[in-house]
């Protein structure tokens, strides 16, 4: 979708507050949201569906609300869409909760558990499939001119642009379909674009932009 989230190359946002500090959490609620996102039970969903739900936040909210607040908004939306909590329950902030069938919540974790277990959360999205990649390193390609109506990871600023294959990454879960709950795999490439080919004011630039793009986003140039 052509949404407010697709920010690459959008102009007018002004300077970056480079000194915005007090990480990791600027405010307490940021830590709570982060922690919840790590350990709450969630309905079965894909990361791409969750991302799409975040993209579907109204543009004026997407651009004005803090980052982790948009996570909370997205969590609410995915729980409600899956029927795990109701709009009324959200509305009453917990005072009206009905628990149908209690779920099996895992035991409390400690910091030690988290640190010990962390490597198991290095999710791998690739898979060996039989088909051969269509493109090889160095080959010239052109990206699709058109977007898709739903979720996609081909940003608007690199649509219909000539680039070249920088590297082959193997086959990875294809996000456009994963966002619809369908797990398929596709060849993934690192693709390099000349800044000069992207923006009217950078025609003399020799800088480059690299994106990781799936095979169906590309055709031979």
């Amino acid at each position, binding site marked *: 979708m052509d949404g407010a989230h697709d*920010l*690459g*190359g*959008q102009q007018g*946002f*002004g*300077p970056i*507050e*480079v000194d*915005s500090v007090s990480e*990791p*959490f600027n405010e307490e*609620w940021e*830590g709570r*949201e*982060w*922690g*919840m996102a790590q*350990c*709450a*039970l969630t309905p*079965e969903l894909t990361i791409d569906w969750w991302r*799409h*739900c975040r993209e*579907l936040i*109204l543009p004026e*909210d997407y651009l004005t609300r*803090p*980052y982790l607040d948009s996570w*909370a*908004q997205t969590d609410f939306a995915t729980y*409600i*869409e*899956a029927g795990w*909590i109701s*709009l009324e*329950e*959200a509305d009453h*902030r*917990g005072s009206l*909760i009905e628990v149908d069938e209690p779920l099996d919540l*895992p035991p*409390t*974790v400690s910091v030690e558990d988290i*640190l010990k277990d962390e*490597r198991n*959360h*290095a999710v*791998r*999205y690739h898979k060996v499939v039989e088909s051969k990649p269509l493109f090889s390193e160095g080959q010239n390609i052109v990206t699709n001119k058109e977007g898709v109506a739903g979720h996609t*990871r081909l*940003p608007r600023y690199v649509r219909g642009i000539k680039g070249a294959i920088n590297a082959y*990454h193997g086959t990875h879960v294809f996000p456009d379909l994963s*966002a619809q*709950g369908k797990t398929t795999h596709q060849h*993934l490439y690192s693709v390099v674009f000349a800044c000069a080919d992207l923006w009217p004011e950078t025609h003399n630039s020799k*800088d*480059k932009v690299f*994106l990781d*793009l799936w095979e169906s986003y590309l055709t031979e140039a």
Partner: protein
Amino acid sequence: MTNYDAQEVVRIHQELRERLPRDPASRVEALEKILTEKGLVDPQSIDAWVEAYQDHIGPKRGAHVVAKAWNDTGFKRRLMADAPAAIDELGYLGRATGHLKVVENTTTVHNLVVCTLCSCYPFSILGMAPAWYKVAAYRSRAVRDPRGVLEEFGVEISNDIEVRVWDSTAELRYLVLPQRPDGTEHFDEDALANLVTRNSMIGTDRDLKVTALGEG
């Protein structure tokens, strides 16, 4: 059950807009209260997660990786070839680093990392992303005017250096390997790690400063 119904989610977002409080703290508090009462989350586990990312998992890990790569050519070779396996040696493999890729700065190349579509970040090795990494100003401009962005961070890139911007559009995550500063030949790994700034591993810092004690 998740129905993957985008139209429904748009409707839900609009409803929530009217129904939820406007300040983020109250919204997140409401979410925690609801999930807790539903038995979907354990507040003590949240505490542990906060502590983990407050005190343990952060950019010091990345700095250690960088220092080791400077100091140990075998490790560097493994890191450049297969970063997840290499950081796993140090116990740092985890969230969002299953497809980590390291890109190296040289005298003629500077690397800068961004995620224009969301704000993807290699959590298990750099911790929480800095605020500036997640704002529209950075996400929009890093791919269009990287030199202008770097200037705002006080980093001047001369014209003979090529800037390479890495937009994390898939599940790969990027870690910049900054250049080892001159005059650090006798520094041990700890002293080297102290020189490495968080920003230098994202690419918004370039020339690392050497201090007497190796405290960067």
